[in-house]
């Protein structure tokens, strides 16, 4: 059965990029544009992996990650941060926020898929 990846991303172009990339590699995808939607969809689809943009409208991706990690059902779901925050210290801060992995934008397609595979095969 195909694995499901929840993409949390507010930029349409980037959303399309991640979606097409993942679907081309045979994954199912769900798309959330903000934090609240991300939590709702995560509960609905129980994804195998969550790709999390950090800068989101309303609630930051770090906050959403915290909710997921505190959720009794979702807490085991791996969260990979995909963010354009690539300054010194950003990766540490994001990993401390509970994300299992960190990918900085612009992504390399190879590394992106490799990281996804590492978590869900």
């Amino acid at each position: 059965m195909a694995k499901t990846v929840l993409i949390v991303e507010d930029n349409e172009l980037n959303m399309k990029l991640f979606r097409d990339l993942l679907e081309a590699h045979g994954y199912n995808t769900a798309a959330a544009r903000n934090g609240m939607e991300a939590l709702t969809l995560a509960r609905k689809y129980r994804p195998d992996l969550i790709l999390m943009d950090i800068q989101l409208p309303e609630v930051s991706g770090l906050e959403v990650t915290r909710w997921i990690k505190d959720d009794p059902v979702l807490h085991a779901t791996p969260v990979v941060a995909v963010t354009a925050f690539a300054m010194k210290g950003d990766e540490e801060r994001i990993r401390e926020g509970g994300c299992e992995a960190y990918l900085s934008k612009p992504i390399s397609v190879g590394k992106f898929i490799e990281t996804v595979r590492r978590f869900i095969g």
Partner: protein
Amino acid sequence: MIVPKLIRDCLDALLHPSARYDALVSARHRAFMAPRLLGSLAAFAAFPVYLAMRGAPTAIEVLVFGWLIAPILLSYFLSRTGRYESAHVLSSLALTALVLTVAFKTGGVDSFIAFWLIAIPLEAALSASRRVVGFASALALSAVALLIAASYFDVMPVSEVTPAAERIFMVIGIASGVLYAAGLAYGAESLTRISVSLLYVEEDRYRLLARNMSDVISRHHRNGAVEFISPAVEQMLGVPASRLMGHGLFDRVHVADRPAFLTALSDAARSEEARVDFRLRRDRPRNADHPREAVADFIWVEMRCRLMEQAPGQQEMRKPEVVAVMRDVTDRKAQEHDLDGARIETERANAAKTQFLATMSHELRTPLNAIIGFSEMIVHEDELMINAERRREYAKLINESGQHLLSVVNGILDMSKMESGKFEIVPEPFAPREALLSCCNLLALKARDGGVELVTRTPADIPEMTGDPRAFKQILINLVSNAVKFTEQGGTVTVSAHVEGARLMVRVADTGVGISADDLRRIGDPFFQAGKTYQRRHEGTGLGLSIVKSLVALHNGEMTVESKIGEGTTVSVALPLSFVAPAEPVEISNVRPLGAALRSGQQTYQVRKRA
């Protein structure tokens, strides 16, 4: 005048080293030695003359003259040892022994020499020592008692002196006695004079200190009550010292500093030195503006206090007191405050710079992600099974992202040009109303997409103006697109323009999310968008308003931002109808809160540009 000076120099040479540095002690030593040395030497000088007149001397005469060596020995003793009290005691003993011996030989208590016993306590009076005076008085009284007892019990030898010689002795004795008394009187007078003049010197020294020292010295009870405060305090606080006694000073200590003030005093009372800075209320002299009330303000005072040293022998009767020195350090405090302000400002500027870089990096990376990602997918089109239609779509997306990236780069370039003063304004006449309407038309679609109503209110009679029409359009597009972006569905953005005096007033009002007071201060800083970093609600570079601010400034205009969270934001721009170049380089981020202009709970801040 030479002889006294010579004598004085000789005497100074004889002073014991320990007596040389204290004026009063050296005066006493001189007063001890001078009459003794002079008397003895004079007597020696007179001895040959006496012998020539009297012929062979009697035993008593030899004894008396022999005894005249004693004062020289005593002076020598003092000169060598510096023991002034001992010298006085020895002197009393020598004189007593002489008088007693002579008196025994010359008729006891009736002798011409007996009245010399008076000299013993008198001489001791010069010692200024109660012990010496007591000893000398007791000695003289004992000698008198001894003489009386000797004549009562009749153990006195028969006087060897003939009545004729006795008369001569009487004359000599009285004359020498009066001379001696005169010497004593002179010595006493000169000692008194010296001590009085020393007192004056001391007093002058203290007066000099008190008059020229701006520090205030005070004595406190351990609970802080003032028991003494130096008059310099009037200079410092504008109130007489008498009004600060007791709790008068404490009442002037700033309420917030009172605990520190009391702690310092009680620490000092426990014999730890303490130092404290506190504020004191000062009364300014009444002036013409406020003739009725004395204006009060606070000065910073540094106080050092310690337990007061107590005079020996008084420990048991006095409670511990604290002596304090206060100094006005207001200027120093003001400098420290300015330094702090400068430091905070620098830190803020550094933080803003870091923030600027982080945001710029973010804004560049977001479109780059799409460009690199999609192009990489096309590279692997076979693996990913991308057909021609998909490829075209990706090419379009890459192009779109590239355009966005270009606009970000242009924005950054415009910003940096404006910040470095290289953005050129090309003034020409143009019709502001038409420019405004065309900008609004450009954005009408975006507004409709977002469900926002865009209303324009521009009277038809707005005159032509001179300025840079590109800059004018840029200002409007940035303001209106910001307003549309930050307004929820169903909201309204109103763009209005009218002429006020020689200026065109443009207002862009929205019913959007609003800006918090804290963020309002920073609005217009490059890349700044209200709200927390990771929690950005709206896309954008954060450069729009910053560019507006600079363009308005380049037109010698003024920009004002008013906002209330949840109710909306109004940006007003005033531009001169005829362009005048700013006289001085434009300063970015000169934002000032308008504390006084609060409208019924609405916080208003103003972004002012200097002309």
